[in-house]
């Protein structure tokens, strides 16, 4: 049995009498201890999918099973890191982590919770910032705290919604490597199941065991791709290999072909949404150009 099974998930939105299909008939599964990235251009419903996994959004039809049980709402088996505002601004870094621990571990005393918080803040390199409020921390530091909280809660599953999307390139690289290191661990404890939403192909390749590529309007699974690189991974070594570049180009090609197909189809049928799609294409192109350069 897979850890997470997504079965025929469809989500419709009604907004100002217009009906949108955010996700149509999405199905795939995630094994225990697997790191899966969901990648796609904006509007492909990847964040919607994650919000259903988080338990704060519900599908129109279909279901998600965790350990064979359908999701009924939020749960203590899942830890979440958002792109923004995961932290409570009125709590210090350490209180934020301890608060998360408290929600899953009701028996721990306050001192024990703070000790766990300190331990995980040290893992993300913030032991000297533990008494700072989020407003006193940079965006990258805030995400470190959010990761520390999710890890300290010690949930089976980790859900991450573009956690490094708003971080500058240099810090993003550092955080990706930190996450990779923390997740791969030293092999003594089982790895957590991670669902990681991103629009960055390099990030997805570096971190994942499997990449689920999605297409937009409506959101559907385009391809599931296994990432063939051994662990533990090292970015500097990995990016120099031929295999890496070949694999990356293949993914990029898929990414384009999907978008080009979409635009062609939309124009033929003179669909109103074609305008939407062109704006989405220009975004994707600018994004991929900067990747190629």
């Amino acid at each position: 049995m897979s850890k997470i099974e997504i079965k025929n998930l469809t989500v419709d939105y009604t907004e100002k009498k217009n009906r949108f299909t955010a996700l149509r008939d999405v199905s795939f599964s995630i094994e225990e201890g697997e790191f899966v990235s969901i990648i796609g251009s904006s509007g492909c419903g990847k964040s919607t999918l994650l919000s259903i996994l988080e338990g704060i959004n519900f599908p129109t039809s279909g279901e998600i099973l965790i350990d064979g049980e359908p999701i009924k709402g939020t749960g203590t088996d899942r830890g979440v890191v958002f792109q923004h505002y995961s932290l409570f601004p009125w709590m210090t870094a350490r209180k934020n982590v301890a608060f998360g621990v408290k929600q899953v571990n009701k028996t721990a005393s306050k001192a024990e919770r703070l000790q766990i918080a300190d331990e995980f803040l040290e893992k993300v390199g913030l032991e000297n910032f533990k008494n700072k409020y989020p407003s006193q921390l940079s965006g990258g530091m805030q995400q470190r705290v959010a990761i520390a909280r999710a890890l300290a809660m010690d949930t089976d599953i980790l859900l991450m919604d573009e956690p490094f999307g708003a971080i500058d390139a240099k810090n993003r690289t550092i955080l990706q490597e930190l996450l990779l290191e923390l997740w791969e661990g030293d092999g003594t404890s089982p790895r957590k199941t991670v669902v990681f939403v991103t629009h960055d192909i390099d990030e997805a390749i570096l971190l994942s065991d499997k990449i689920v590529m999605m297409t937009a309007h409506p959101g559907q699974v385009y391809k599931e791709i296994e990432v063939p690189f051994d662990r533990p991974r090292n970015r500097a070594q990995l990016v120099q290999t031929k295999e890496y570049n070949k694999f990356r180009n293949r993914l990029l090609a898929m990414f384009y072909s999907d978008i080009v197909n979409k635009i062609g189809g939309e124009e033929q049928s003179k669909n109103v949404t074609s305008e939407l799609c062109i704006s989405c294409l220009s975004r994707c192109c600018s994004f991929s150009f900067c990747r190629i350069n």
Partner: protein
Amino acid sequence: MHFLFIALLLVQLLPDKLTTETYAGYVVWFAVGVEILTLIVSALIKKPLGLTLFADIVSFIYGLLIAWTLATAKFNLLKPSLFPPPGRVFWQLIGDYEKIITNILSSVGIILQGYLLAAAAAIILGLLLGSSERLGNVATYIAKFLGAIPPIVYIPYGIALLPTFRSVSVFVIFLATFWPVLAGTMSGVMNVDKKTLDSARVLNVNRFTMLFSVILPASLPQIFIGCNQGLTVSFVLLTSAEMIGAQSGLGFYIKNYSDFGDYTRTLVGLIVIGIVIVVISFGFNKIQKYLLRWKH
């Protein structure tokens, strides 16, 4: 500043033109007290900007006292019964201190009781009402309507309804504080960032934790806006109410003595009220700053 201090002392040495006792010694003692306070403060305050501000305020007080002394005791330019010399006011202040303390306690007691009751009730009710969008919306309009009525107009009705003057005062201060705090709390609760709520939801917090550990602190800045408004109105109300029908309190002290033409004591009352309000506001700001220290 120290120059003004010396000038103030020298001014006291000029011959009095006023025939009644001017108690110049009290001004000297007051000025010496302020000087000592200044020395203590300059040792405690580290920020040069804060120190300059303090020195400027002290200079202003000295300047005012010099002008006041000259206009009254020394040159007798103003009508002595309406404008007593400063020494006389200080003398009266010290002579009346027991009465003044009793009146301060009476006024502050009423304010605290009405204000704290109202704030606590309004915050709890606001949290509960604000959690439901529909209830929150309707309650916001009701709070705006009822809050728009100047609370002072409740006084006659309160007197008819309630047995003692004290209970009327508490009731009116309660109303004056309750509506703005309720409106502030609901606006805070209803505008909590959805991302913050989602973060709490994915942490699986229970309803109680959600309300008191997430929604309450997130709405605190807005709650304080309501509390500030309530506090300002409470002072105005209480002193006005005390001037209408009380037998104690600072408003009563002023009204009572001005009725007898004792304007020295009227001035004493004005100064004391000013000091009491500044002290309470200062304490309130400290609390607010501490509770909102996570902002910025």
